[in-house]
């Protein structure tokens, strides 16, 4: 091989190695940081892993919100109208959090079957439902009608 080709080959090999390593690291980082979504029914069936960060969501069950009178601890249940899962959260709930509203919570399942949430998300549009929740509700055949005002043609 002449020196010029050799140099080129080295460069190509170098680039391939660099790209390989960075793609590998990226995929590893990605695999460490994905949070899977589980519907209340899936959780009830025991599909959700313990002590792993997951996302769960559904409609907040009417009358289920219980507050601790001393702190910001709050407990409530979300449902896909088939099953429901209790969620424990300590902190300030989002503005749109209310009973009957679709929410998504991130956290870990504990041994008692409660989701210890570190984050509760509700979207800023009363007709908007997180796609995961909508799909879970549709699967269970319990999709509610939108309640907010919307004008259609």
């Amino acid at each position, binding site marked *: 091989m002449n020196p010029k080709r050799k140099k080129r080959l080295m460069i190509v090999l170098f680039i391939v190695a660099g790209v390989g390593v*960075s793609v590998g*690291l*990226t995929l590893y*980082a*990605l695999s*460490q*940081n*994905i*949070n*899977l*979504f589980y519907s209340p029914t899936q959780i009830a069936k025991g599909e959700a892993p313990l002590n792993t*960060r997951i*996302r769960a969501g559904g409609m907040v069950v009417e009358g289920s919100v219980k*507050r601790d*009178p*001393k*702190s*910001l601890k709050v407990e409530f249940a979300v449902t896909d109208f088939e099953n429901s899962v209790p969620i424990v959260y*300590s*902190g*300030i*709930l989002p*503005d*749109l959090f209310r009973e009957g509203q679709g929410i*998504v919570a991130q956290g870990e399942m504990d041994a008692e079957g409660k989701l210890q949430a570190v984050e509760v998300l509700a*979207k*800023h*549009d*009363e*007709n*908007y439902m*997180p*796609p*995961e929740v909508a*799909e879970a509700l549709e699967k269970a055949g319990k999709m509610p009608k939108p309640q*907010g*005002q*919307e*004008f*259609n*043609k």
Partner: protein
Amino acid sequence: MIPELGTYALTLALCLSVLLAVIPLIGAQAGNLLWISFSRPLATGVFAFTAISFVILTHAFLVNDFSVSYVANNSNTALPWFYRISAVWGGHEGSLLLWVLTLAGWTVAVAWKSRDLPADILGRVMGVMGIVLTGFMMFVLFTSSPFERLLPNAPVQGADLNPLLQDIGLIIHPPMLYMGYVGFSVAFAFAIAALLSGRLDAAWARWSRPWTNVAWAFLTLGIALGSWWAYYELGWGGWWFWDPVENASLMPWLVGTALVHSLAVTEKRGVFKSWTVLLAIFAFSLSLLGTFLVRSGVLTSVHAFASDPERGFFLLMFLAITVGGSLLLYSFRASEVKSESSFSLVSRETMLLVNNVLLTVICFTVLLGTLYPLFVDAMGLGKLSVGPPYFNALTMPVGALLMFFLGIGAVTRWRRQDLGSLLKQLIAPIILAVVLGVGTLSFRTEGATVWTYVGVILAYWLLLMALTDMLNRVRRRGSSVWENLRKLPRSYYGMQFAHLGVAVLAVGIAMVSAFDEQRDLRMAPGDKETVGNYTFIFEGAKHFEGPNYTSDIGTLRVFYKGEPYDVMYPEKRLYTARGIVMTEAALDPGLFRDLYVALGEELENGAWAIRLQFKPYVRWLWLGGLMMTFGGLLAATDPRYRKQARREQKKMEAARA
């Protein structure tokens, strides 16, 4: 009747866009100057009619014409007039009309500002802009017309603008962001024109540069404004969430930043040509991808308000045609491109190459993290989301590397430089930066991580290298320092400003990530809490009535080291039309720290859930963004571009005569 005129004007604009897409291109291909000369009036016509339809929609909002479906869904008689104007782009349809208006604005600006451009290039640029315009006009008219009526049952009252959008940040954030997004279409058009004509030379880069700089500056400003708005209006004090829609705007910015630098190399040295073209194509494609992600509703995001598969499909097709077509053209033409010079390993060219590679790598990782959940979902493998730790883990080291090389690049010469002389210049600043950085942070080590040190040290590093470069330039020759400073071109100062903006941004990120303090509390009237040197006393909340909302306003007395300092009034609003609750945080902004108080929900006996936050250096984030914006605009307005173009035209005329 008037809204129908809006549709009519938009339809006319579409017709003119089709002509703009066809006539100048054919003219350029056939060398017919008359046909090319149609591009200016056509571009003006497209802009005028789009503007008319935009004004008509604005008018419908101002007079509360609720027979127009879009107005009924996004406005209300109780809405103040300025929010009625910003409501024009508060929803999907109007927002796209603004998109198209911005695109038409850029087109007409290029048409009238580029008198010095050779006719065939102008014709091709205009033709490409016309094609893009046609695509988006069709999108608006066929899938998202804002003028659809609700007749005969027009409502008496509108649904109101989403309260989240009733804010000064939302009046200016979307137009700025769109200016940037859409502005990359100009860089794209220039790139395609160059490919079509086969004239990929330094002149091409010079024409394209000011436009790309302006677009990049607006995109920077738009992103910074979005972050600022999220911080006080939505984020409970967060400033970047790695939300897919944020990522959608960050990706074109990253590639755009690479493009701005790569264009500089192409112009100055005649190398990286095909790479630059590819970046221009990708910057615009990513803008389109961003529009698709935001507008198709495939994302779970604060921005995802409604979904409509038809719209998503249209945009996806448009994206596929644009990317596919331009890459096809690229693959035919790129092999003909020859570099005009060479460079050695130690040179500014290499440094800028490293800059490009690193920026592309960041963009790729962001793209992967953003699209991966969509991909998995589409394959039916489950629902998942990618968390911020992924993005932080990858962008921080690469970003740090980028800053390190940016410092070196600033003092490296074009073409080649002796490694020894370069290293000699680097050693002192490296040591000094480490000493200064560690020294600065020694006042406060609690909470600092390795990345805090890296960020602050690199910020000093950038500052020192900028000064070194200035000194190198000023010391040259015999003339006085002042004279030399004045002789430096405007684009040089633009560059320095933007690079110092990076340093300021890095300080902001490092400090606020390490030292911010947050308390979520249950506070009854009289309760006291101390955060840092500040003590907050809650005095209860009272009820008030606003124009289209009712609110509870809390009162907190703030003491600084025991002395009375401020009174803060965080607010909780209930927007009556939609029944939406909004948090209006109380802020005490400062250059070195923000105090941030937000009301959560009311608990029993007058107690409230309250979030108290101490945010050091958070303003530096947006200050850095503003400096970059300013730098970009400064560089774009360098008189050099105009002078050079005029000189070239004279040369061409002389050659012709």
